[in-house]
């Protein structure tokens, strides 16, 4: 992914790699015990400090205004070590992108003012849903003092941590949905215990119940779906980077293990069937890496068809990762199935990362629909 990047991005990438090695690897198993162990607030706070939560944020909102390639590089490095942090960074970037697309710069700026306060900086967001498909929306009503949200929204990522949540809601008497920003501290706002999930345990999600929570409209009422799809266009490639990082971590550890482990009187790396599995993993890693690089460049340069490039990269990388990480367990035999090694976590994380941005088959249908309807040139 790094063939063609600037010196500045190379430094960012190196910084992310060092950060992952220093903060994520050693305590990976313990971090992953959440919610049965404390959340790694210190790591999240440091991530905020080094700017992982504002990579693409416009400069006037306090961010680095980096291209999507930068976000992909960071996600790749983090997710090799521990995809939980990648999930949080991704969710934050997605929420910011929607705010930016909606022209809600003033909301972004307010958020960046939190200066060092983690909860103030984070935005909770249901990053596993396309609200127009899943119907996972609150209800919005307009009263004298403005909008209020009620109802339930499931699986809101970072919901227990962030001071703000960006939520989809249906406005009474109107088609589609709109996005609203709410304060999670309001008394009408109730978050469940963290939802126990397959993977990325340290990127928690909660189910929300809202009852008359004051909300600020983001952009225009009818345009929620439009903002969301535009954000998906840009950030699908970042979801692909999450999957790719997980795969690379799995491959690296499997290769190393096969060099060490002996069975049948030799290192297992000498058995050709073991090499076949390693080869299949390596090829998938390479393919995914090329996809992300190419699609991120297309997005950043606005090349014709960049939207489909980004979406195809996500669908493909996300479907390679479960297979790769399954082999990553397999090559470690029984040890691969145990928490003591990172491989079982990567298997879970890879599958957890697959439905980011919505149910996979529905995203496939959406992909072909945009070609059939002539919205996008393939």
């Amino acid at each position: 992914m790094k063939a063609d990047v600037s010196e500045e991005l190379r430094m960012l990438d190196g910084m992310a790699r060092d950060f992952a090695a220093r903060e994520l690897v050693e305590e990976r198993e313990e971090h992953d015990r959440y919610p049965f162990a404390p959340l790694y607030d210190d790591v999240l706070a440091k991530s905020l400090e080094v700017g992982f939560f504002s990579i693409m944020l416009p400069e006037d909102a306090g961010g680095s205004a980096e291209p999507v390639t930068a976000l992909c590089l960071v996600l790749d490095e983090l997710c090799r070590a521990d995809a939980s942090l990648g999930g949080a960074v991704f969710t934050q970037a997605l929420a910011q992108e929607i705010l930016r697309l909606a022209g809600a710069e003033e909301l972004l700026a307010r958020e960046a003012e939190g200066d060092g306060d983690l909860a103030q900086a984070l935005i909770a967001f249901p990053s596993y849903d396309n609200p127009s498909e899943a119907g996972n929306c609150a209800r919005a009503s307009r009263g004298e003092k403005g909008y209020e949200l009620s109802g339930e929204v499931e699986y809101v990522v970072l919901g227990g941590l962030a001071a703000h949540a960006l939520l989809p809601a249906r406005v009474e008497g109107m088609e589609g949905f709109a996005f609203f920003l709410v304060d999670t501290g309001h008394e009408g706002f109730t978050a469940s215990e963290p939802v126990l999930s397959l993977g990325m345990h340290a990127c928690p999600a909660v189910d929300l119940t809202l009852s008359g929570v004051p909300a600020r409209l983001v952009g225009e009422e009818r345009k929620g779906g439009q903002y969301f799809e535009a954000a998906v266009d840009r950030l699908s490639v970042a979801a692909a980077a999450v999957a790719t990082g997980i795969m690379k971590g799995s491959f690296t550890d499997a290769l190393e293990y096969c060099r060490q482990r002996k069975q049948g009187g030799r290192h297992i790396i000498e058995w050709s069937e073991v090499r076949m599995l390693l080869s299949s993993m390596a090829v998938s890693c390479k393919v995914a890496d090329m996809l992300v690089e190419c699609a991120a460049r297309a997005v950043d340069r606005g090349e014709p068809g960049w939207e489909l490039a980004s979406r195809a990269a996500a669908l493909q990388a996300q479907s390679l990762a479960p297979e790769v990480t399954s082999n990553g367990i397999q090559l470690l035999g029984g040890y691969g199935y145990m928490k003591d090694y990172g491989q079982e976590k990567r298997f879970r994380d890879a599958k957890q990362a697959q439905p980011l941005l919505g149910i996979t088959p529905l995203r496939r249908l959406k992909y072909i629909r945009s070609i059939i309807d002539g919205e996008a040139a393939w």
Partner: protein
Amino acid sequence: MFEGMKSSSLLDRDPRLVDIMCSLDNAGKMPTGVASEIREAVALARRFNEAVARPYALELDRKMSEDPTYIPWDLVKEINRWGFYTAWIPKIFGGKGWNLGSITPVVEELCSVCAGIGNLIGVQYFGLSILFAGWNMRITDKVCREVVEGERSGEPCLVAGLVTEPGAGTDAEEVELLSKAKVRCHARRVEGGYVVNGTKVFISNGHVSTWHMLIAYEDLERPEETMILFAVKNGTKGFSFGRMEKKMGQKGCPASEMIFQDCFIPDEDVCISASQMKGLKRGAKGTGMQLIDFVVSLTRPGVGAMGAGVARGAYETALRFARETLVDGKPLVNHEWAQCLLAEMYANAALARLTYMECNHVNGLYGMASLLNMKPMYYYMRAVPTAVLDRFMPAVNAADATTRIFRKLVMDGQTEEEARRASGWASLSKFAATDLGIKNCQLAVEFMGRAGIRHDGWAEKFLRDSKLLQIYEGTNQLNRLNLFKCMIAPWVPEAQVFEE
């Protein structure tokens, strides 16, 4: 006549019909009572699922995530009460003597709800199969009757199988690899018995078992020639439990480390030793492989059935989701693509089932319990009350002559062809059905999106549980190689397996 000869020689060509379609041979020989036994057994498993497994599976999984040292004694006792731990112990050893053909459908049924609980039951028959495979009738009788007593008294008596060592997993499953393996579990001959030193790992049900079927080696430089099988009971001096593993799935079934430090095991608990194997037709190495094959021919289709179970569980979960979820205002189940996906998942579960059903036929003909499938024996065993057998069988089983006769009959009586067919098909079912199982779990999670990754949605647990099926009872790679060795290599004179 001439015509007949011609077709039989045609059918004897590779692929020989007897190799690829054992069901054809066995169907006519199968006692009709087997089918009704299977129905009853599956019905019991369904009752158990509704009463015990389904209400508890998620809670147990969660509890184990919170506290990986928790030992599910209450559940083991409940299973004991339901009679699953003695159901397939033959009546001559005091058990219920259910037909072995019913064990795989029951395992599928159990695993369609929870593979961890399925394993907590199924592994009992892994341990017992190792016990049976030594054909030491005296010890088998002793251990089985303790299991039966454990059911009566309410104090479960489980049997675990201890094969894998830290440095030898795949190697411990195949004698050709064993000869190059770094095994460490050593049995030193002393006056009146053996002193064992070594460690076993990943032992399913270890911490909840009473008897431990231990494979060790008298000469660590020549393990393939010096295998020895012991029955070790809890409390034996020098034997202790080590750590309990923290697993990704099947959390309800503990995987244990077992430690032997100068552990003295008396001669009377030696099930079969290399010197006894030397007296048999195949010699020590060949009999060692036969012992492994006896076991895995029964237990690998069991893992295949677990594959069918998770495949079905994942499919049923996806179907439920499809009926409850609206997309574009229409239930997902009425979208054509979803119907095709569900059909695919249905087929995966069915294909997995077919593989273990074929193994049931193969084992019916050639497995180590095939004697019990012969019609006169089958009907006699069904009719005779256990109480009657109990009056004389313990004494019969205790006689050395009984062990000698059974070893001649079953071990020496089995031909190489029969052994390789049973082992080859078992491997086929093991890897094919478990690959299908995990595939369905992946599909279900993918199909359900956010609902698929939530613990309360079931699909993610099926996925975590299913991955183990590709690893234990020999990795799916080892099982592919074993299929090649048993079903392909015999017709390929230049083929060398494990020799690359």
